[in-house]
């Protein structure tokens, strides 16, 4: 039970400092640690470098930290859905580093796996490779990319046991498992904490070793692009 915290405030206590780097899981609004993001906002921490595939929407997800100007820099692959982001970026108030999505995912995985750098063909011949080492292997050019780590990773999972073993649900998995490995400290919010032993050991996505603190929360789970098909006429 040592990993389980009562609420967002206690789960983040002592972990935040101005100028820190935070990884935040999720793809779009799917699988984001929405309660922990709100907790970071409430903590008042400033000058954050946030590593997250996207930047939330106005007023939700990381949009909340943009509104309060707590983010100094984003490392992302796509940030299209956020007017406040756009405004701050165009005004030069926000620094932005774009990574190809797969390179971002692999940099995080590498950071957690003790790999300081790797080569990928993604981005060769583009702006992404500028200033980076490019090297040929077997006649093809690859660019060297470096591993990423964070002072804090905030992660959303579906279920956890009391030892912090995690299971994700459907495409809400996305960046969460790698980020759990790449934070010096990893805090996880889940929809349900179950007794240790009730998750199938063959089906645990993230072993508890990567989880420092754990809270059970209720999530809004907002849908960004509700898209449906028509039922055939009866």
């Amino acid at each position, binding site marked *: 039970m040592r990993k389980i915290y009562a609420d967002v405030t206690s789960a983040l206590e002592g972990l935040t400092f101005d100028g820190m780097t935070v990884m935040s899981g999720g793809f779009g609004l799917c699988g984001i640690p929405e309660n922990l993001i709100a907790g970071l906002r409430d903590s008042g921490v400033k000058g954050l470098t946030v590593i997250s595939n996207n930047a939330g929407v106005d007023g939700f997800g990381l949009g909340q930290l943009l509104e309060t100007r707590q983010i100094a820099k984003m490392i992302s692959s796509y940030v299209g859905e956020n007017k406040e982001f756009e405004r701050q970026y165009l005004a030069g108030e926000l620094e932005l580093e774009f990574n190809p999505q797969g390179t971002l995912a692999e940099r995080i995985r590498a950071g957690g796996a003790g790999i300081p750098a790797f080569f990928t063909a993604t981005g060769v011949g583009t702006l992404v490779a500028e200033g980076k080492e490019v090297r040929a292997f077997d006649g093809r050019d690859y660019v060297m990319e470096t591993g990423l780590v964070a002072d804090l990773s905030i992660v959303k999972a579906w279920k956890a046991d009391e030892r912090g073993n995690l299971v994700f649900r459907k495409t809400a998995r996305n960046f969460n498992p790698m980020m759990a490995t790449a934070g010096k400290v990893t805090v996880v919010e889940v929809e349900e904490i179950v007794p240790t032993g009730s998750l199938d050991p063959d089906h645990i996505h993230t072993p508890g070793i990567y989880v420092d603190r754990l809270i059970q929360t209720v999530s809004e789970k907002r849908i960004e692009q509700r898209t449906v098909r028509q*039922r055939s006429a009866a």
Partner: protein
Amino acid sequence: MPRTREQLAERAAKELQDGFYVNLGIGIPTLVANYIPQGMEVTLQSENGMLGMGPFPYEGEEDPDLINAGKQTITEIPESSYFSSADSFAMIRGGHINLSILGAMEVAQNGDIANWMIPGKLVKGMGGAMDLVAGVRRVVVVMDHANKHGQSKVLKECTLPLTGAGVVDRIITDLAVFDVKPDGSGLELVELADGVTLDEVAAKTEAAYTVAPGVG
């Protein structure tokens, strides 16, 4: 006559083969899913972490934990599997996806593609596009032949920042289909849309190209 959006998607669907694993980009490429021939086994990958992507859900059955790379709600099918973004792009980067069909702002005769950034305009990011064009075995671009100013999007050289260099295998436009010749010698026109003439394509194409035997 130039192909409509639906006709472009229908033509692009002819690129599919039985047993293929395919990643479809946003926009017209997404429509290709509607033209998979009956009985053909084609598995769609969504780079946010799903293989075996089903159709949009019925109203009331949307699941916020189940979206595609365009952030749209989707559904599961019997062969579906989920994985992390790192595993998803390992699949893409490692050359395991047979085919990527995606849109573009510009394609050059050497296979360069630009589809993520217009200098001076707000840049939203490349998302997974750079990984897809670099990693997927065959890259097919589906786009209008000309931009809204009537300028050719099939170019000698791209003017916009690249998404990938020398990565496109085939270009399907509303007027024609070009192959990027694997020997690097440029484009070959391999198909005209119904009612489109060689002269019309010539007039609307900046890139140099040869014409395959029997076309036109």
